[in-house]
């Protein structure tokens, strides 16, 4: 939908036809701003008290702003009011519908740090919009340390950062299991690129793929019982699936090119990946059980890599090389049209958040959150340098 169409739709919804005519002559930036704020739910945070109230309000403000669907306003004119008490180790909070004086949510969130507050933020978003919130999203990524890279895990706002590996070797391409408990990733610990599975809680790690040649690009299946990955053991980098229970391998592609970066459809029936079998790298889908042919997605870009299938199944984000730099594009499975959603800098390795609206990717070594609806971007500050290959939890 274009900005202009959006404006008229928004204004019509409010029955302000006359006002619409006036705004049509106003500067575009002003009218666009009006429409965006009209579309957001207005929530007040000034009724939170307690020793850690200021910190809790700050975190909630941050979370709601990034959600793209909630605007924080004073309680005097809010549709919804958050009431409660914040201490260093707990948040006791409720969400009240201001017009009906009805409580929509009342709960205690315990634990230190920002995570309990993110949990409350996500529940508010889900209750008010029906779509899951993303504030509790965790991101696995790698950061450079000398000539090596280490694997890290952090919250979407850059907090709760945790170093997972200390191997002083190259590593990359993490994927977080659907249950959030394990990370699959590539490590050069043996000297070769192998795929490992690490339990986040215990730190227990096991090697799951170390065939001759490359073992990389692992992506968890939606049920968490399989990985899709690139192996070259049969003479060429192709896509396979690997069962995590019995370790059974199924070959998905059989090309002469480099096939890489698989990502699963949310129903688990298909895999999208990149292949340069027919020249420059392009996106293809193939049945995940290895039963059929690969189909090219006509995404309209000469160089297309690193696909990420959205959790709602409708969109595929990917990298295109445009004018010598990488941009993030989003391909719509229904309309078969893709649009470029970044414009500046080098933007690599998009990964969808659970709401199929926000993307995380790396921009010149920094991780960035993008709202694909509003086009707002937020830098995720974590104090580390050269952060790449982010992967979001479900």
């Amino acid at each position, binding site marked *: 939908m274009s900005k202009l169409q959006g404006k008229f739709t928004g204004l019509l919804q409010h029955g302000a036809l006359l006002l619409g005519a006036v705004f049509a002559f106003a500067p575009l930036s002003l009218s666009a701003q009006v429409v965006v704020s009209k579309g957001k739910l207005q929530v007040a945070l000034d009724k939170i008290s307690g020793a850690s109230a200021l910190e809790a309000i700050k975190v909630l403000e941050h979370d709601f702003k990034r959600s793209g669907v909630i605007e924080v306003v004073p309680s005097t004119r809010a549709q919804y009011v958050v009431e409660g008490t914040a201490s260093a180790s707990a948040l006791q909070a409720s969400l009240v519908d201001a017009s009906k004086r009805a409580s929509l949510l009342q709960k205690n969130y315990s634990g230190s740090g920002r995570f309990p507050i993110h949990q409350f933020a996500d529940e508010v978003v889900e209750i008010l919009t029906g779509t899951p919130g993303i504030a509790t999203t965790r991101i696995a990524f790698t950061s450079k340390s000398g000539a090596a890279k280490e694997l890290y895990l952090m919250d979407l706002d850059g907090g709760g950062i945790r170093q997972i590996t200390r191997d002083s070797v190259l590593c990359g391409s993490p994927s977080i299991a659907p249950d959030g408990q394990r990370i699959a990733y590539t490590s050069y610990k043996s000297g070769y690129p192998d795929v490992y599975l690490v339990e986040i809680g215990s730190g227990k790690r096991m090697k799951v793929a170390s065939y001759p040649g490359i073992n990389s690009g692992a992506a968890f299946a939606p049920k968490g019982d399989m990985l899709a990955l690139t192996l070259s053991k049969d003479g060429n980098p192709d896509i396979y699936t690997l069962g995590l229970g019995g370790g059974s391998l199924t070959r998905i*592609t059989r090309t002469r090119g480099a096939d890489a970066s698989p990502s699963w459809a949310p129903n688990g029936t298909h895999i999208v990946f990149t292949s340069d079998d027919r020249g420059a*790298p392009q996106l293809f889908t193939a049945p995940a059980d290895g039963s059929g042919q690969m189909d090219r997605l006509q995404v309209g870009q000469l160089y297309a890599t690193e696909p990420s299938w959205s959790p709602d199944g409708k969109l595929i984000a990917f990298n295109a090389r445009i004018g010598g730099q990488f941009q993030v594009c989003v391909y719509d499975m229904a309309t078969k049209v893709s649009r470029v959603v970044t414009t500046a800098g080098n933007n690599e390795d998009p990964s969808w958040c659970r709401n199929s609206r926000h993307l995380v990717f790396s921009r010149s070594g920094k991780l960035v959150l993008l709202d694909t609806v509003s086009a707002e971007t937020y830098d995720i500050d974590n104090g580390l340098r050269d952060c790449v290959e982010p992967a979001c939890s479900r």
Partner: protein
Amino acid sequence: MACGIVWNLHVLDKKDNSMKKLIALTLVSLGALVLPACKSSKPYDSTGAGGPGSEVDYTSMGQLPDRGNFNPETDVDYSVFQKDGSETGIIYFATDSSSVAADQRAKLDTVASWMSENTGKTILIAGHCDERGTLEYNRALGERRSIAVRDYLIGLGVAADRVYTHTYGEEKPAVQGGGDSAWAKNRRAEIGVVTR
């Protein structure tokens, strides 16, 4: 004959691994050069149905050898083919390409001759990319380049079980920084001799 064996190999993919290895070895001894001429219609055909080229298919040069008892980080000597500034052991590639270009093939003739004179030695080919690809695709492209060089050497008569492949993607550039000349130096496969 060779085509039939390739087909059996695929059928056995999910079955008996030792049988598969046996067949793979037989395949290699039959001479890998015969194989690219084979065509067969397989369920995994990478080409779309209908239209020109829908019958085109490729057979593989065969499975990679099991990893040898060496560490590619510490037990590979790249200086053997790079003495006194020589670039015999460095095969360069065009952008986004894994084809062994005509002007690089003389180097591989030299390597193949060395292999026939040093029958006890094995080599590792490490594929590299410039920074203008995304990281994971470049890991696969580096491996593809390594395999392209390996296939070419096998075509020259080098035994398949003496050539190992490896990829670093874009993580170990030969030259730091950007620009056409740096990128050209970084799109390469380096051939090293296994030292243990």
